[in-house]
């Protein structure tokens, strides 16, 4: 039982959050919070890289018949822009929040498999380096992120470009699958006592749904790119029509992954928004249950709509009708979510922090993306829009207006928890206005460009088709977005040193991560909290269960109470977790360098396969492949027998 002294000063024990420092401690760390921070900075870096690639694209298109970059460079840039943004920037940025926030929200000390978590990060890190290397050496994939067969086959693409696609994404996908399994296990098994599934914070719920999608969708994609790898490297003919393969099989496999991927990128944002809006409206989320079920339904339906990317393929009227209708169905749970967010704000007391501004802008911009999405589901009409700039507009209203605005909201919201300091609100608002104006200037004219006949993925266009002024505006919007992103970067750098001290709960939020110091101590919770409600830091709860006074965690962690009366004691499986201080024996996983070495072995194995196919001195590097495989084997062996204490 906690003493009154601890109630008065619940976090007096919180000393330095990280006892170790130095590069080596970051490389060997298995702490979910540090891994989250690694993901955070890596993905911000790749976000800037992806932005620069976008600027190459938009600068080439600023005037008709421009010679800024060549056709091949342009093709590499639009491919690499998508790959970088999807796999190296946005997914890892959501992963940064999964890593940092989820264990805190569910009252856990770490994820289920901390070393596996480190491995996920390092595999992603090396996979990202490989794709970055391809981009700067002008060997990047040049076939679009969709990489439709048969242009990916060796006879049309003899260079290493597509090999980078195949092997780079296998590495990055491996990282996602490992992380996905880790988080599913963590969320299902490591919730604090009392946190039933329907008491989970909504963000954690969305992470759970996302991870199920990642594990299943990435598996399909891995099959597809493995087949493509076999076509290119070992002479099979899965997708080669000249030798009996079927290029349409690639499209089906790709979109069976590619469509759920859209939800992999947007469902975590639903979670972020559903945390931010209640906090700054000072009202609980409107219709929590329905929000959960609607998201499960969106994830589920996401599997049944892949062929709406293929209306021009000629699948026949029955398939087209099925996929048109299933696609329209998704609009219903999505609409429910939008109206529930609006319902949350209704009657609230809305504080317009930068985070909240981004959340509200998300609702508006995502609605626009959703409307053009419904327009795409109208299969015959889509035949005029598919592969035009109308689709580019749509996807950017979903990915930028949806995912990126939502991630910005999350950054402003959780930055103080992660770094202990607030981001500057004035700079934040400059960033917000610039970003919102820039994105609409860049992407809104694209709807018109598409309907006026501009195809996407074209490096040039003649000047007499009426597209010039809209392309010019669009490019200006891209520059404006780039400038405002620099404001965010400056804000992050500046606030890390000079930002206002955040305190435990600067926003007065309701979930568990705000009950501990910012940044949290290495063991997160001194006492694993007992959870009685969905919003443990707010007094009232949906079911009128006893809440916890604002800003405090249950001190009496071991008691089970009903209506305020203690009826029993919790028995912990591990008696150590009752201990309240680090040096009193809270069990934390020790650092390990095997994850990074294993990840490097994977890079070596895959990377050497690419150079095997390059002309010149490096053409035969089989010994590197063998060394890579050996390194992987040794790492796994050593990892398995590494002491866990």
């Amino acid at each position, binding site marked *: 039982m906690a003493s009154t002294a601890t109630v008065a000063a619940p976090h007096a024990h919180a000393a330095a959050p990280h006892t170790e420092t130095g590069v080596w401690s970051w490389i060997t760390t298995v702490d979910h919070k540090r891994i989250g921070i690694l993901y955070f900075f890596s993905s911000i870096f790749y976000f800037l890289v992806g932005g620069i690639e976008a600027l190459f694209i938009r600068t080439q298109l600023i005037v008709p018949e421009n010679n800024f970059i*060549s*056709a*091949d460079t342009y*093709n590499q840039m639009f491919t690499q822009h998508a790959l970088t943004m999807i796999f190296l920037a946005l997914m890892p940025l959501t992963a940064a929040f999964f890593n940092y926030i989820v264990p805190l929200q569910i009252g856990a000390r770490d994820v289920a498999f901390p070393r596996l978590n480190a491995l996920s990060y390092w595999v992603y890190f090396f996979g990202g380096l490989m794709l970055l290397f391809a981009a700067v050496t002008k060997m990047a994939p040049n*076939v679009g992120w969709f990489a439709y067969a*048969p*242009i990916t086959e060796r006879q049309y693409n003899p260079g290493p470009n597509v090999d980078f696609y195949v092997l780079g994404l296998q590495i990055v996908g491996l990282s996602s699958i490992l992380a996905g399994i880790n988080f599913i296990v963590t969320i299902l098994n490591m919730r604090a006592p009392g946190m039933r599934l329907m008491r989970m914070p909504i963000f954690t719920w969305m992470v759970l749904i996302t991870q199920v999608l990642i594990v299943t969708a990435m598996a399909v994609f891995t099959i597809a790119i493995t087949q493509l790898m076999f076509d290119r490297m070992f002479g099979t003919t899965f997708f080669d029509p000249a030798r009996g393969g*079927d*290029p*349409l099989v690639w499209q089906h496999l790709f979109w069976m992954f590619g469509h759920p991927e859209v939800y992999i990128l947007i469902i975590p944002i639903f979670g972020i928004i559903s945390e931010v809006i209640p906090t700054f409206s*000072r*009202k*609980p989320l*409107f*219709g*929590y249950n329905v929000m959960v079920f609607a998201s499960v339904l969106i994830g589920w339906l996401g599997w049944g709509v892949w062929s709406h990317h293929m209306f*021009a*393929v*000629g699948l*026949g*009227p029955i398939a*087209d009708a099925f996929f*048109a*209708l299933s696609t329209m*169905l998704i609009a*219903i749970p999505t*609409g429910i979510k939008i109206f529930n967010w*609006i*319902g949350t*704000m*209704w*009657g609230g007391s809305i*504080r317009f922090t930068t985070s909240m501004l981004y959340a*509200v802008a998300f*609702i*508006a911009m995502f*609605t626009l993306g959703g*409307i053009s999405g*419904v*327009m795409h589901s*109208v*299969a*015959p*009409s889509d*035949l*005029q829009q*598919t*592969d035009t700039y109308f689709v580019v507009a749509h996807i950017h209203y979903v990915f930028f207006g949806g995912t990126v605005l939502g991630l910005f909201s999350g950054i402003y919201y959780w930055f103080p928890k992660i770094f202990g300091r607030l981001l500057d609100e004035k700079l934040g608002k400059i960033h917000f206005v610039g970003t919102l104006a820039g994105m609409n200037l860049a992407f809104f004219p694209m709807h*018109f460009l598409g309907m*006026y*006949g*501009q*195809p996407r*993925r074209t490096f*040039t*266009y003649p000047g007499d*088709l*009426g*597209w010039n002024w809209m392309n010019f505006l669009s490019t200006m919007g891209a520059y404006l977005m780039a400038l405002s992103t620099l404001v965010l970067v400056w804000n992050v750098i500046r606030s890390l040193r000079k930002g206002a001290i955040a305190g435990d709960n600067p926003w007065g939020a309701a979930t568990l991560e705000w009950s501990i110091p910012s940044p949290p101590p290495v063991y997160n919770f001194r006492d694993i909290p007992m959870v009685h409600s969905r919003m443990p830091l707010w007094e*009232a709860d949906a079911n009128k269960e006893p809440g916890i006074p604002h800003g405090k965690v249950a001190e009496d962690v071991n008691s089970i109470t009903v209506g305020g009366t203690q009826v029993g004691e919790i028995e912990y499986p591990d008696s150590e977790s009752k201990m309240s201080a680090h040096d009193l024996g809270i069990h934390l996983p020790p650092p390990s360098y095997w994850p990074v070495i294993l990840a490097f072995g994977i890079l070596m194995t895959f990377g050497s396969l690419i150079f095997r196919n390059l002309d010149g001195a490096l053409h035969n590097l089989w010994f590197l492949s063998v060394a890579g495989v050996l390194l992987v084997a040794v790492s796994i062996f050593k990892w398995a027998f590494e002491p866990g204490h």
Partner: protein
Amino acid sequence: MKSRAKSSGYSPWKPAFGLALLTLLAGCGEDHLKTYPQTTFAPASDFARELDWLFKYTLVLGVLVGLFVFALLGYIVWRFRYQPGHPEPEQVHGNARLELLWTFIPALILAAIAVPTVRSIFNTQREAPANALIVEVRGWQWWWEFRYAVNGGRDTVVTANEIHVPVGTPVQLRMTAGDVLHAFWVPQMGGKRDLIPNKVNTLMFTPEEPGVYLGQCGEFCGDSHALMKMRLVAHEGDGFQRWLQNESQPAPAPRDSAVMLGKQLVTKGACAGCHTLRYGAARDSATMGRTGPDLTHFGRRRTLAGGILENNAENLSKWLKNPPEVKPGSKMPNLNLKDEEIRYIVAYLQTLQ
């Protein structure tokens, strides 16, 4: 068909601002076409008109929904902004009736979209009628091949980058690809359809207005995807038959010495390895190259190099000088022709009317 499409503005959802928006989007008449010649908003076939109607119908519904959400959002952020001194808001957790309402109403709107969508899916993919003109289309990196059966199917007319069709007759395209994926797209005739190796896809439309329409490959197909364009020429009266009749003839014989030299270079030189040219009275006097466009009536075509350059002596010389420079990745290599040779070849090709 026609009557329904004409009534596009008269959906039961006709609000004044919807129409205003359509006018803004669709522009009007000829001026609009001069400004945006590759527009989808000036349909010139039954197929394109049906898609246009569906698009505008969905757009009006979408805009209404969007305006509603935006207005609601705007009202809320203004009405419920934080004001000092206000009490904590009431802790409302949900409202089953409201949530059912905003499940049900979107479902109704979607049903209103679904019904015409499904009807249109089946309508635009129906069987070709017996009188339909069949054109075989083949996509290559980076040009279009069009084949017409003539003389009761015994002969074939082959042309490139310029498809000719009669107004008022249903046209069915039977399409496949020779190398990678492409997509046929002439916006004013209707939507895209992919060209896929080993698969024959069809697309059917009835041209309604004579004219020359711009088209463009719609599926990414490599370096010069942006430069894979075409013209669709819709003929009135017997124009199409006259064109087809002319195309089925062999190329006209040279009349002067420069042209004669040019013919020598084309039919006996490297060109013949890739290009077909029917130039004699006898059917066997022809070059048989298959990897490049048929050149038999090249001089009559409006454009060259996959529809990106106007067909004139200057452009043709530029093209022959170094094709990959004009068109990145071009399968026609730089043959290092001398200026003199280029002049003869140009002279000859221009006579191929």
